[in-house]
């Protein structure tokens, strides 16, 4: 298959990028400019802002864990898609293979669950 169906996507991408860049570039020109030191500070509901955001740029390790779990499951999804599209052609063989694959991922999932990887606090 040729790449020509992808050309309109590039067109829409270019138009959206032009619009967004124009808006961002035009914003300082259309609005007023009245200097005030308080405006340029980090907003913390009126109290003196902390020198560095959220405890010196540190944040809970849970977010990394969520990202890693996401990668595991997203790769599983990527394997599921081609299987799903050609499911009718694969028949029983495809089904058994996928039961084994989902079973393997499910073992990892159950392990993460038991170790508390899915609990937030």
């Amino acid at each position, binding site marked *: *298959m*040729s790449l*020509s*169906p*992808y050309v*309109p*996507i590039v*067109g*829409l991408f270019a*138009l*959206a*990028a032009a*619009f*967004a*860049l124009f*808006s*961002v570039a*035009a*914003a300082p020109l*259309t*609005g*007023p*400019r009245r200097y005030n030191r308080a*405006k*340029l*500070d*980090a*907003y*913390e*509901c009126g109290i003196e*802002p*902390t020198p560095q*955001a*959220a405890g010196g740029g540190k944040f809970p390790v*849970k*977010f990394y864990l*969520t990202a890693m*779990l*996401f990668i595991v*499951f*997203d790769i599983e*999804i990527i394997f*599921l*898609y081609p299987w*799903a*599209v*050609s*499911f*009718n052609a694969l*028949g*029983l063989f*495809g089904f058994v293979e*996928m*039961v084994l694959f*989902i079973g393997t991922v499910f073992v990892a999932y159950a392990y993460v*669950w038991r170790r508390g990887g*899915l*609990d*937030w*606090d």
Partner: protein
Amino acid sequence: MNLAESPKLEDFGHDVWWIILIKVVGIFAFLVVMTLFTIWYERKVVGRMQHRPGPNRVGPIGLLQSLADGLKLAFKEDIMPKLADKAVFFIAPVISTVCAFTAFSIMPLGGMVSIFGERTPLQLTDLPVAVLLVLACGGLGIYGIVLGGWASGSTYPLLGGLRSAAQMISYEVAMGLSIVAVFMTAGSMSTSEIVAAQANGSQQEIFGSTVTLPGWYFLMLLPSFLIYFISAVGETNRAPFDLPEAESELVGGFHTEYSSLKFALFFLAEYINMVTVSALCTTLFLGGWRAPAPITTWWAGANEGWWPLLWFTVKVLILLFVFVWLRGTLPRLRYDQFMRFGWKVLVPINLVWILLVAGVRVAANADNTVRYAIYGGFAVLLVGIIMFWPAKKQVEPASIAPEKLPEGSFPIPPMDLVVPPSPRTKRIEHAAAAPSATPEQGE
């Protein structure tokens, strides 16, 4: 039903350059107008739900309100915080907006139409992996939010951006798994072919009479549809899952430090994403641009020419109404409840449902031995689920005994304090009990 006007995958990629240009500008205009309309629509519907008129000053029934708000934003001061990372702060709203627009490029808005004499599908383009493009753009759009939150150099945006990212990737897993069943049933990932696959209903014998059921996948794959819609609400950061901008905790979330047109771009991206997930839901589960069943029986031309655009828009607006309805009805979830729901409820249900759909489809075409083996496997799975069902943790009831406080500290009322009824309530009860007596008697 006539399938002749339904575009095939081979019909795409042959457009003349000016047709592509018209379609690109048309999609762009459609999305911007839909955004302006949706903001007005949401405020109006929420207003009516709360017994308010909603916006009604600018233009007829307030229709120009969101345009006026957008113009006003353009003339506000563009603030660049001192601690911000200049380049990333500048580029983040652009990433969000561009990804939001690009995701819509494969949405089928209708069948074959003629634009200035050229026959072409009413769809910008279609690919064999079209739905994957929407998911990819959704995934890239998260960069805009998390970078915008990080680059602001401020506490609330950083936390809001991180929450957003964690939430969106968690619900993207649920969303990605929920549409596997659709690909399995349609045998394709191209949006126009998925719409075509839903065109024909199935004849079913129900209580002796033959009934034509619509082929829309939300009937056949109801769990997929429900999981898709729930995760779409989580994916677009909408109430009741709008934790990234929980204003009671995080002021405005990732866009706290943004102002002027940069803020407007984030807002635009959020509403376009809402339109896109609704449009994808329409395409995958609600029969796409095809008219609903009663209309096609009365009127044969309902799926021809430009009419599909109307059905498509109506379906999208109905889904957007559900978004607003959820916002008007449900309180916001706590973050741990929300993540637990995504990972511990939606993901396992999805995996089991995929296996169930696959097993039933294989069993339908297999001989008896295989069929019994598959059904036996399901029975074993069911027993396993019941046996290993996670037991509810016993939570110690919170102690209501007052703690021993050091001398001279501020007195804290006990947890089981019964508040005496207010004098006003007493007066009202008194008046209700003795309606003949004047309420002011005792005063």
